[in-house]
């Protein structure tokens, strides 16, 4: 208790020095809290954009689909009965919000002047609208199940063939029997997703119309949207268990296994975050050690007195360590408080960020409140404070008492 009291009073006694050391830690920790929150918000934003504009949380296929669909897509599609059974199973699993059928293929989209290869997705318009909530219709309207010939085009694809809302186009595809087939479609809307590359080639149409074009009743994928992304492992376990019990011949793939881009972004940001953390922690290390070295030098006389009075070397080390850790605790707690305050402020300002590379639209700047980062930064700052203080504290304890008493 006395050690704490002496430490606290010494911190207060040398106000300017203590404030400098605390400020160093505050600025460092607040930056880590904010940058960590920014990175986390980016992860979440990107993750949810990918899930809600392309992949859903989980995609379920006929067994062997992932390995073989490029060579033999027709052999590895889900029959209407299988698709229905899978959807019925999924509806019994907690956290499953909605399921939707998809049929994907490539085709040639064109008008009388030009044509372009397109990645076409036949979808259930109602359920897909929920799954694709991150997709923005920038012109026209979304797909309507009652308007079979309606299609929506990615912004880049629409620009590529100079198509506008209301235009009628011809879509050329190959049926499951290998015969060329064509349907007339009408552009009802133009969309923008998070990925420009996707928008340059993507088209969506009503599933039934796509099945007509391909002359099939089968689908490729049952897409699953959950009410909570973090529930995905639990849902996957349930799907594995239930499908085995019901002997369904299916396989599944999680969104992150499809989204290579997401993993690359995460790796890149993690690298940035680690580097920035390292720089900040090195500054904190020097800030604390500098303060404690000066403190020890200034208080040599006091160290001599305490040792003369019978304080053991360990007592001197404990005293200085307590001061260093107290200083760091104050800085870390204040840093987190200030980081949280700035996080709130930035979020409330609703600043818009420009579109990131590979993306076609900007996004609101948002910082997340990440308790894990707060706890980690406090722990790391305390560990740094311990080692930054230990060396000067050991030096102080090893001073010859007589020399310390003579120190001016």
């Amino acid at each position: 208790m006395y050690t704490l009291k002496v430490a606290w009073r010494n911190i207060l006694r040398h106000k300017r020095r203590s404030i400098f050391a605390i400020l160093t830690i505050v600025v460092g920790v607040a930056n880590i809290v904010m940058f960590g929150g920014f990175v986390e918000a980016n992860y979440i934003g990107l993750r949810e954009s990918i899930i809600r504009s392309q992949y859903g949380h989980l995609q379920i296929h006929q067994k062997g689909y992932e390995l073989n669909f490029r060579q033999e897509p027709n052999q590895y599609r889900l029959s209407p009965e299988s698709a229905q059974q899978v959807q019925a199973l999924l509806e019994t699993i907690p956290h499953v919000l909605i399921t939707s059928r998809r049929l994907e293929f490539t085709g040639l989209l064109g008008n009388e002047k030009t044509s372009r290869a397109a990645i076409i997705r036949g979808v259930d318009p109602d359920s897909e609208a929920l799954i694709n909530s991150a997709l923005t219709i920038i012109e026209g309207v979304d797909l309507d199940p009652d308007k079979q010939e309606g299609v929506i085009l990615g912004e880049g694809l629409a620009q590529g063939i100079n198509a506008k809302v209301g235009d009628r186009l011809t879509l050329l595809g190959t049926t499951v029997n290998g015969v060329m087939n064509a349907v007339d479609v009408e552009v009802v809307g133009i969309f923008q997703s998070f990925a420009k590359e996707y928008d340059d080639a993507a088209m969506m149409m009503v599933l039934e119309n796509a099945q007509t074009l391909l002359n099939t009743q089968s689908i490729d994928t049952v897409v699953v949207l959950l009410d909570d992304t973090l529930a995905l492992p639990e849902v996957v376990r349930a799907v594995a268990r239930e499908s085995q019990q019901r002997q369904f011949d299916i396989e599944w793939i999680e969104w992150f296994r499809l989204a290579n881009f997401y993993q690359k972004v995460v790796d890149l940001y993690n690298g940035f975050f680690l580097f920035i953390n390292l720089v900040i922690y090195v500054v904190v290390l020097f800030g604390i050690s500098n303060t404690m070295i000066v403190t020890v030098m200034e208080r040599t006389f006091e160290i001599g007195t305490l040792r003369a009075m019978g304080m053991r070397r360990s007592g001197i080390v404990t005293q200085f360590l307590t001061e260093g850790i107290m200083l760091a605790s104050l800085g870390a707690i204040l840093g987190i408080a200030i980081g949280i305050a700035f996080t709130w402020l930035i979020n409330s300002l609703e600043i818009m960020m420009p579109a990131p590379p590979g993306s076609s639209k900007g996004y609101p700047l948002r910082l997340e409140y990440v308790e894990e980062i707060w706890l980690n930064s406090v722990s790391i700052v305390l560990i740094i404070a311990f080692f930054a203080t230990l060396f000067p504290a050991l030096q102080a304890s090893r001073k010859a008492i007589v020399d310390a008493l003579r120190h001016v």
Partner: protein
Amino acid sequence: MSFIQVKNLTKYYQLGKNSIQALKNVSMNIDEGEQLFLGGPSGSGKSTLLHIIGCLDRYDTGSVTIDGRDVTLTNDREMSDFRAFNIGFVFQNFNLLPVLNVFENVQYPLLLSRAISADQRRKRVKEILESVGLDAHAEHFPNELSGGQRQRVAIARALVHKPKLLIADEPTANLDSTTGAVIMALMLDLSLKHGSTVIICTHNQELLVQAQRCVMLRDGEVTNDIVTQIQSENTYVYA
């Protein structure tokens, strides 16, 4: 057997490439309760001797026994504990801890020796502050006190744990002569009451002349060891 036995004590200091002999075969015995003044010019070795007897410094050859314990054989931790329980120090510059008030400064040795309960501690500190006339200043910090008051606090701190040995290094050097005399009398009086053996190092010739026992050193050697029979052992005059 004497309370303190110093035998053939030798101490060298390294000053650059030169080795300086600070003490040359110093021997002396000090009885329990004795009040001894160490005198001599600067560089005579009196502070070195004081530090060695106070277990603050090591020596090269010889031996020092305090209360039957050979301090040569102890390690740093044992020496620290020995000082905490058995020795009180009064320094020329008072050496009070600036962040602690008078009460807390005086209490500190009791915390280090961990010998008594909190209630006893408070009682003992209050008593000794009364005896040095500073009970009204218990909450004051050192920078709020005069030099004389600070040295009174230092004396209270040195004696609060009832040490067997009180060591004072030029305790009046930073005080005016009147205050110095008062402080010296107070220190001797209190240590007598506590039964502490006292060793005081001083330049002050007046004090040396009045001393019960005065040991003079020059160039690391004892040149005089004078014992004066004082008439009234328990009387010290407050100037």
